[in-house]
C-alpha cells in the first residue's frame, strides 16, 4: 500500500430543498494514494460534483453533512477543522478545477491577479515574484504568450485557454490532491485531449493524486488507474480500470460501458443510451436505486438496498452481479 493522501469515510451530503431532503451523496467511502488517478463516472445528477465539493468542504448553506462523515486529507480530518484552518489548506493541499471554464474565472480581475492572489496568500510571495511565477505557471499549462495573457481579462481568452488558466490556478501551490470536475466537457475534442494530457503529466511529474470526474468512459479507460462508478449518490462499483472493464460486475457499469461512443458515432454523444431515468433523490426507492432500469433485477432488488461488497480490489453493490450465475 502506498502513501494514502485522501481517505473518505461514509460521506453523506443532503440538501434542504422546498420539496424535502435531497440526499445527493449517500455514504461514499474510498481512499486515494499518491501518484494515482481515480476516475469518477456516472450520469448527470449522480452526485459527482457534490462529492467533490464535499471533499473540499465547500458546500452551500443548505447542505447537511452528518457528524460521522469523515474526510481525511494527509492524515488530518477536514471535518473537524475550522474555516480558517480549511482556508490554509485549500490551494496547497487540495485544489479543484470546476466543470465550466466559461464561468469559473472572475470577469473583472486579470488572469494574473487571479493566480497571484493564491501565491501571495499561501506561499507568501511578493508582488513581483508572484507575477513571475504566474507567468511561469501559464507557460507550464501551455498558454501561448503568457507574458501578455497575464494582464488580460477572462473574456479575452477562448474556452480552452480559460481552462488552462483554471488549471494554472489549481496547481499554483502544488497541491497533493487535485480534483478535476469534468475539466473538458465544454471544450472541443482536440482541446479536450490536450487538457487531459496536461493534467496527466502534472500528476505524474508532481507526484500528486487526482480525482478525475467525467461522463466519458473513454477518458477513464485511457487516463485513470482506478474507477468509481456513481449512481444516485452512491458508489456502485469500484475497481482498477482493467478489472472494471474486463470483469464488470454491476449491470449499471455494464450499461455505461456499452454506451462508450464508437469511432463511427457522431461527436458529443452523451451517456443517454441507458433506458429510463435516474431515481428521485428526494424520495428514493427502498431497494436498489438502479433496479427499475436493470435487466437483471428481480423481486429481491426492489426490496433490499445492496451494499458495497467484494474484495478490497474490486467492489460492487449488486444482488445479481454479472459474472455469477443468477440464483435460480
Amino acid at each position, binding site marked *: 500500500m502506498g502513501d494514502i493522501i485522501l481517505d473518505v469515510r461514509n460521506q453523506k451530503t443532503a440538501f434542504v430543498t422546498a420539496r424535502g431532503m435531497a440526499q445527493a451523496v449517500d455514504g461514499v467511502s474510498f481512499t486515494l494514494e499518491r501518484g494515482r488517478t481515480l476516475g469518477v463516472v456516472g450520469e448527470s445528477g449522480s452526485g459527482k460534483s457534490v462529492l467533490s*465539493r464535499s471533499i*473540499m468542504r*465547500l458546500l452551500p*448553506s443548505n447542505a447537511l453533512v452528518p457528524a460521522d462523515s469523515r474526510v481525511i486529507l494527509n492524515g488530518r480530518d477536514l471535518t473537524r477543522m475550522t474555516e480558517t484552518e*480549511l*482556508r*490554509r*489548506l*485549500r*490551494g*496547497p493541499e487540495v*485544489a*479543484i478545477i*470546476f466543470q*465550466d471554464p466559461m*464561468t*469559473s*474565472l*472572475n*470577469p*473583472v*480581475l*486579470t488572469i494574473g491577479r487571479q493566480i497571484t*492572489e*493564491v501565491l501571495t*496568500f*499561501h506561499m507568501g510571495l511578493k508582488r513581483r515574484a508572484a507575477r513571475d511565477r504566474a507567468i511561469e505557471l501559464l507557460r507550464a499549462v501551455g498558454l501561448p504568450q503568457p507574458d501578455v495573457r497575464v494582464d488580460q*481579462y477572462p*473574456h*479575452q*481568452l*477562448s474556452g480552452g485557454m480559460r481552462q488552462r488558466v*483554471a488549471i494554472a*490556478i489549481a496547481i499554483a501551490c502544488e497541491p497533493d490532491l487535485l480534483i478535476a470536475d469534468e475539466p473538458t466537457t465544454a471544450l472541443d475534442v482536440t482541446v479536450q485531449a490536450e487538457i487531459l494530457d496536461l493534467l496527466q503529466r502534472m500528476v505524474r511529474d508532481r507526484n500528486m493524486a487526482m480525482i478525475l470526474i467525467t461522463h466519458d468512459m473513454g477518458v477513464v479507460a485511457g487516463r485513470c488507474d482506478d474507477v468509481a462508478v456513481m449512481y444516485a449518490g452512491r458508489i456502485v462499483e469500484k475497481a482498477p480500470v482493467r478489472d472494471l472493464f474486463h470483469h464488470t460486475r454491476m449491470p449499471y457499469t455494464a450499461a455505461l460501458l456499452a454506451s462508450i461512443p464508437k469511432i463511427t458515432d457522431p461527436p458529443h454523444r452523451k451517456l443517454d443510451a441507458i433506458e429510463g431515468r435516474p431515481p428521485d433523490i428526494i424520495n428514493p426507492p427502498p431497494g436498489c436505486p438502479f433496479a427499475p432500469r436493470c435487466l437483471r433485477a428481480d423481486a429481491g432488488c426492489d426490496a433490499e438496498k445492496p451494499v458495497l461488497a467484494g474484495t478490497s480490489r474490486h467492489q460492487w453493490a449488486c444482488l445479481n452481479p454479472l459474472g455469477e450465475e443468477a440464483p435460480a
Partner: protein
Amino acid sequence: MRYLLYRLRRLAIVLGVVTFITFLLVNVLPGDVAYEMAGMDSSEEEVQAIREDLGLDRPVLLRYAEWVGGVFVGDWGTSYINQENVWEAITDRFPVSFELMLLAQIIALSLAIPAGVASAFRPNGRADRIIGSLAFASVSMPSFMTAILLIFIFALGFGWLPATGYEPISEGLWANLRPMILPALSLALVEWTVLMRTLRAEMIAVLQENYIALARAKGMSNMRILLVHALRPSSFSMITLLGLQVARLLGGTIIIEQIFGIPGVGRLLIHAVYTRDFIVIQGCVTFFALAFVTANFLVDIAYAWLDPRVRTGGAHG
C-alpha cells in the same frame, strides 16, 4: 464616436421635450410675472400694458422659439424681477447645489456599500434583517421629514451642527462642510436604501457564481471574496441607479435647500416659481436636464472602469 453622436442626439431630444413642457406648464399657471411687476394694487390696464411691453401677449410657440434661439447663442435671458442674467444666476448658485448632491451621494454610498455587502453575505441572517428594518424606516420617511428630525436632534437638541446657513469654501473646508452635513444627510437617508437593496440583490446573485466558489476553493477569506471578488461585479445596477437618482436628488435639493436656507439653484427656482419669473424657471429646468444627462454620461464612464468587457470591447484576442 458614433456612440457620442447617439448620446448627443438623445440629449437634444430630452432637452427639447423637457423645456417645451415646462414652457407650456408655466404658461397655463394662473397669474403671470406682469402682476408681480406691476405691484399689489395696480389696475388691469397697467398689467396689460406691462404684458404687451414684455411681449407676453404673443403666442406661446413663438415665445418658445425665441427662447430656444437665445439659448443657442448663449443668451439664457434675464430675470424679469431683478434683471439678473439667468445663466450667471444659475452658474453662481450651482456649485452650492452640486456640493450638496455630491455630499449626499457620498454619504448614501458609504452607507449603502457596507450595508449591502453585509446583508448579501448571509441573506435573511441577523445583519440582513437589522439592516433591512433600518432601511425600511429610513426610506419610509420623506427627506423633508428626516430633515426636520435631524435639525431637532442634532441642531436643537445637541447643538452640534447648525440648523441653517451656508459658508463659502473660502471660509475653510470645515466651516463650509459643517452646515452642509445635515442637509446632505437628509437626502442621503432616503437615497441609500435603494442603493443598498440594489447592491444586495445583485451581490446575492453574484455570490452564487462559479468564480466565487473558485475563490473560496483557493482559500481566500470571506472579506476578500466579498470586497475583491464580488463587489465590483455586483455594482453595475447600483451605478446605473446612481445616475438615475440624480433626477430625484435635484428634486430633493429644492426642498432641502429651502429648509436649510442654502443658496443653491433650488432656492432660485422656488423663488422664480413664486414670482412667475418664467425665464428663470425655464433656465433652471434646462440646467437640471443638462446636469441629469451629464451625470448619466459619467455613469457610462464608470461602467467602463468597472467592467473590463466594456473597456476592451469584448472581443477575443
